[in-house]
């Protein structure tokens, strides 16, 4: 069975500090991977997607970047956090090229102070 793991579970960071969030998928080969952001009490907004190692497409610009160093790993990062980066970050995967059925991880709660 496939499992999706996100780390850390929660982070409290200062404005201007760097950030790195991770996501690992086990049990699926060559999944499509996605990063989403969710404001507290809000909807989900897709940030990035990747269909293969080393390839990442940006969907919205939020002063964040993403990388896919391994087939089963997706990293979200920034060098300088903003207050507006606070929220819930979710990693998702899909198997089909169209990305219709997407399955989400448990999320990372980020608080920027």
């Amino acid at each position: 069975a496939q499992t999706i793991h996100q780390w850390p579970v929660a982070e409290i960071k200062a404005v201007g500090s760097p950030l790195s969030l991770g996501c690992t998928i086990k049990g699926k080969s060559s999944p499509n991977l996605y990063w989403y952001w969710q404001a507290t009490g809000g909807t989900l907004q897709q940030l990035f997607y990747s269909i293969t190692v080393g390839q990442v497409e940006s969907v919205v610009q939020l002063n964040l970047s993403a990388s896919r160093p391994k087939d089963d790993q997706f990293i979200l990062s920034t060098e300088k956090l903003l207050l507006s980066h606070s929220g819930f970050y979710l990693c998702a995967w899909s198997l089909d090229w169209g990305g219709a059925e997407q399955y989400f991880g448990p999320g990372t709660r980020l608080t920027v102070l």
Partner: protein
Amino acid sequence: QQQVRQSPQSLTVWEGETAILNCSYEDSTFNYFPWYQQFPGEGPALLISIRSVSDKKEDGRFTIFFNKREKKLSLHITDSQPGDSATYFCAAITGNTGKLIFGLGTTLQVQP
């Protein structure tokens, strides 16, 4: 402009009643509509989905009704249970884009 709209924003029903959550969309190229259930502090879970070639999809107590002409869907939860209390998101996607568009969600409270 919100491409996927949901109503009501919040809904309270009694245990055993049917909860009806509505969703509408603008883009006629959307052809797949998943519904996600999210509990506080957790990632959303895929609950049920429908493709635009169908007008109904049933899975246990959960049923999606789809009206392509009016660009509307509804999720019916029959025999609602307190454990169904969660936020429900309607989403939509076009073809092979991989870009899921989410509505703002409906928060359902089932009173025992």
